[in-house]
C-alpha cells in the first residue's frame, strides 16, 4: 500500500462519465484520488485532486505519475478508464479517427499502466483495472476499430497480469455493456436498447454495476484475481 494514511488511487478520464463516477466513489470510500483528463475538471470534492494530462502523450504520463509519487509517495490502485469511441462502419472511418481511437484506448492504457506499475513495484502491492467493452465479445458491427482497440486492452491485461503477478500487482479488465455517457452520445437510443437486448441480462449497464466490479477487483482480498475480463450483463 502507499505510505500515506489513505491508499492512493489514480483514475484516468475522470472529468466525466464512468471515470467521474468512480473517482467520486473512491474518494468517498477512503481513497486519496488523483484524476486526470485532457482538460480541467468541472467538479471537486474532498479527497480528490485533478491533474491535466493527455494519456496518449508519454511525457505527460511520466509527469502525471511523478506528481502522484511526489505528492503521495506511492500508488495502490489504477482505474485505467480514459477512452474514446467512434461508432461507424469501417468503410466510412477516416484514418485519423482510427489513429485517435487506438492511441487513446490502447496506447494510453499501456503507457499509464507501465508508469503506474513502477510506483506499485516498490510496495509489492497494486490493483490495475483496465477498461474493455462488450463490443469485443459481441463482435458488434459498426465498432470494428473500437472493438479492436479494446481487444488489444484485453490481451494486454492478460500478459501484464503474468508480468506483474510476482510483484503482488493484479491486472484485470471490466467491460461494461451499453451505458449512457458522452461516449455513447452519438448512438441512437433504439440502437443502444437493441444492443442491451443482446446481453444475457437484457439491460444496459449502470454506473453502480461498474462500481461494484471495480470494488471487487481492487479489494486487498482479491489478490488471487488477475488476468480476468469481466463483462457486465453477459455477453
Amino acid at each position, binding site marked *: 500500500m502507499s505510505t500515506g494514511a489513505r491508499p492512493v488511487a489514480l483514475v484516468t478520464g475522470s472529468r466525466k462519465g464512468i471515470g467521474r463516477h468512480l473517482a467520486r466513489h473512491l474518494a468517498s470510500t477512503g481513497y486519496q484520488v488523483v484524476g486526470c483528463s485532457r482538460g480541467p475538471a468541472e467538479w471537486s470534492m474532498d479527497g480528490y485532486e485533478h491533474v491535466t494530462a493527455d494519456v496518449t502523450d*508519454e*511525457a505527460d504520463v*511520466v509527469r502525471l505519475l*511523478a506528481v502522484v*509519487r*511526489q505528492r503521495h509517495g506511492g500508488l495502490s490502485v489504477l482505474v485505467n478508464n480514459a477512452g474514446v469511441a467512434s461508432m461507424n462502419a469501417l468503410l466510412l472511418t477516416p484514418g485519423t479517427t482510427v489513429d485517435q481511437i487506438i492511441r487513446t484506448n490502447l496506447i494510453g492504457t499501456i503507457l499509464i499502466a507501465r508508469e503506474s506499475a*513502477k510506483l506499485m*513495484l*516498490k510496495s509489492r502491492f497494486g490493483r490495475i483495472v483496465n477498461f474493455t467493452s462488450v463490443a469485443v465479445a459481441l463482435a458488434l458491427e459498426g465498432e470494428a476499430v473500437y472493438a479492436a482497440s479494446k481487444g488489444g486492452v484485453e490481451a494486454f491485461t492478460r500478459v501484464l497480469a503474468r508480468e506483474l503477478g*510476482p*510483484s503482488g500487482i493484479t491486472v484485470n479488465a471490466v467491460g461494461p455493456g451499453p451505458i449512457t455517457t458522452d461516449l455513447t452520445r452519438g448512438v441512437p437510443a433504439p440502437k443502444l436498447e437493441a444492443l442491451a437486448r443482446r446481453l444475457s441480462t437484457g439491460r444496459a449497464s449502470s454506473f453502480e454495476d461498474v462500481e461494484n466490479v471495480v470494488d471487487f477487483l481492487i479489494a486487498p482480498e482479491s489478490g488471487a484475481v488477475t488476468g480476468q475480463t469481466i463483462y457486465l450483463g453477459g455477453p
Partner: protein
Amino acid sequence: MNDGAIVDLIVETVEGYRVSTGGEGGPVARETALFGPSGALDSLGLVSVLVELEQKVADRLGRTVSLMDDRAMSQASSPFRTVGSLADYLGAQLSGGASGR
C-alpha cells in the same frame, strides 16, 4: 553528477533493494555483476532497481531519464551487466542532456 556519485547512487539502490527483500550477498562495488548466475539481482530485482534509480534521479537532479528504453535493449552488450556499466549508461544519459523520453 560525477562517476563516483553515480556509482554510489547505484550501490545505495542495490543494497536498499536487498535489505527491503531480505536478500543476502557480498559488498556491492563498481565491478559487481548485476544479473546472471553470479549477479546481485534476479530479473525482478533488476527492474525494481532501475525504476528506483529513475525516481532518485528525478527527485535529486530534477531530470527525467529512461533506463529501460530501446537503446538499452538493442545494445549488443547490455548496459545492465555490472554496476559500472550501468553507471556509464546513466552517466551518458545525464551528460547528453537528453530527457530519455
